């Protein structure tokens, strides 16, 4: 009887440990499977970023902006003279604190 009990306890312990190990493996695998879609999403966001940046640059093309500046509705815009611009030297005090 004692032998049976000991055998049962051993099998139970081994089984539990195996179960925990497999469970951990499943968790790891789930994370592993989640990586490609996330990486794909990041890549797609980067690509979209590049496309938008390209569109923005096309709109902000100086040739385009100069054409717009010739239009009557933008005729009030002027380039400020250097005398009208106040340049304040910036000191980064963050590191000093």
């Amino acid at each position, binding site marked *: 009887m004692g032998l049976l009990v000991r055998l049962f306890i051993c099998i139970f312990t081994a089984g539990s440990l195996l179960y925990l190990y497999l469970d951990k493996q499943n968790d790891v695998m789930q994370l592993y499977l989640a990586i*490609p879609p996330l990486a794909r999403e990041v890549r797609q966001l980067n690509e979209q970023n590049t496309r938008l940046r390209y569109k923005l*640059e*096309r709109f902000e*093309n100086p040739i385009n*902006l100069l054409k717009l500046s010739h239009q009557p509705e933008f005729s009030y815009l002027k*380039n400020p003279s*250097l*005398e009208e*611009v106040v340049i304040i030297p910036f000191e980064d005090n963050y590191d000093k604190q």
Partner: protein
Amino acid sequence: MINNKHDPPHLNKKDLQRGMIVAMGVFGLFALLVVQFFKLQITQGEKWTSKAKNLHEIVISEPFQRGTFYSNASVKKGHPSSPEQLVFDVPKFHLYIDPDSIPVNQRDTISEKLKTITNISKESWPHFRKQFDYHSRSRRLARWLNRDTKQEILDWWKPYARQHEIASNAIYFIGDYQRSYPFGKLLGQALHTIRGSKEEVTKQGIPTGGLEYYFNDYLKGSLGKRRLLRSLRNPMAKGELISPPQNGADIFLTINHYLQAIAEEELSAGIKQAKAAGGWAVMMDPYNGHILALAQYPFFNPANYKKYYNSPELIDHTTCKASTIAFEPGSTMKPLTLAVALKANEVLEREQRPLLFNPEEKINTRQGVFSGRSRPLRDGRVHNFLNMYLALQKSSNIYMATLAERIVTTMGSTWYRQQLADIFSLGKPTDIELPAESSGLLPTPGKKYSNGVDQWSQATPYSLAIGHNLQVNSFQILKAYSVFANGGYSIDPTIVRKIVSTDKDGHQHLLLDHTKRDYHNYPRVINSEIVRQIVTAMKYVTKLGGTSIQADLRGYTEAGKTGTSEKIINGRYSDKKYISSFVGFTPVDKPQFVLLVVVDEPLRVYIPGVGKNWHGGTCAAPIFRRIADRALDYLGITPDDPHGYPRGDPRHDPEQADWILEARQLRKLYQEWND
């Protein structure tokens, strides 16, 4: 022997031996097994693992990005902004099929659908459909598709493949990067592009010319590696990145995109107005040599390079003529002649010898006969007497030749030629970072041309003095005039501010740095007094009585000179085709830039009330004025000639405009000497 059941079996020696042999045999087999396991798992473990991996996985290349070109955003003071990307790589996709995986009865349907989505041109349909019939695992169908088109194809393909039980990776995409130009044709001839097809193995772009070619070694990157799972169900989705790609280095140019756009806009308008074949304009900072704008018309749009290279008429517009074309500078040479003459004075004064000339000296310019010349020199109109300031204002050939005669007589031909080479670096390339820079030509005593004629003859100095018998490219002219603009220093032009590479870990490395260039670190070639006298003379050129009134800026001071020369066609001067120019700098005190405008083959007509259209003062000077006016306004430079505006402008005040008194005095002097 009687067998007794209670006795144990008796093993004799032979049985024992047999038993040992069997046991040893079994043990040996097990030992072999263990050794084989050890060999396979330990010593050859890596080899078999990689073989197994190759069966389950494939490794594909990960594309890299070619280096980006950035503009210079630091030119406009007090206006912080980031450098703009003039050229960069945009992610695109190539469409491939695995024909062997596509059933024959589905090919027509699939190809029709793909044709519609990708919007293939009608001429390409037969070739497109033919790819499906190849016995192959990979055929390319379409190139440079954007993500939206790719997604549209995938959205249709996945359910279709599932429904018809076709392997989902029978259609797949390979990522790539395409060179893109958000600013279109801006700076086209300088930037250039790369060909649509890349190198097969390394996937490097093949440059067509310009900066893409010159800096190809910096711009190149290297492919990375990515591991994918071999699986019918796996639609070639991205796997593990084994090694990241190494992108090319980024190049920060000295070109400011707004100044470039202004130069291009005004240049194209001016060239059309002059009805010329083309032209170019180059703007340079005389204090650090940075090229701020490099415009050329007709334009070249790198995104449509095939159209240009397939046309005999358009291919000419793809070269950057500011560096590849050397031409006779004509009268723009005259300030350089005066500088050499004043330098001769300096040497003679040091040696306590009589001076060559006095800038105020009244020199007879009625006749242009010089020894060694078969024909007399002539001026645009007859002037009896001129001094240095009048001579430059009226662009007198005879005055300049007279000075050249004195230089050669007093200092010698070799000395004269040496000064042109040493002070202004004529005949030497400037090493601007553009391919195929022409070094120009400065004739050398004792050397011969390819046709056997001596480069230097008795008449050569007179021709050189008025800008003929030599050839210069536009950067050489800018470098020479920068000497006058910055107070006497010879600074090399450059189109690159810095080159930065980013390694795989994201760390940046500065490969080249021209951001801290200063003219004081360059040789001083003439003293400030000579510079002052030359600049004073140049100021008269754009004022009352000068040849370039049309270069007189609104509200700013300027100094410059026109030039007009006959083009050399098939070794002879043409009397119909000219190359005309204006070069100057502004404001005179602390110039923001030196600007050269060149008009190629302006129409040879006389414009009533204006003058000869083919003269630099008529066709090139107005372009200079318009570019310079707008550039100074953009830079926020305070007008230093607040009354120097044309009639009709409320700021116009002829009594207070800069240099008006001086110009009137000079005109009075001219009238005294010549009327």
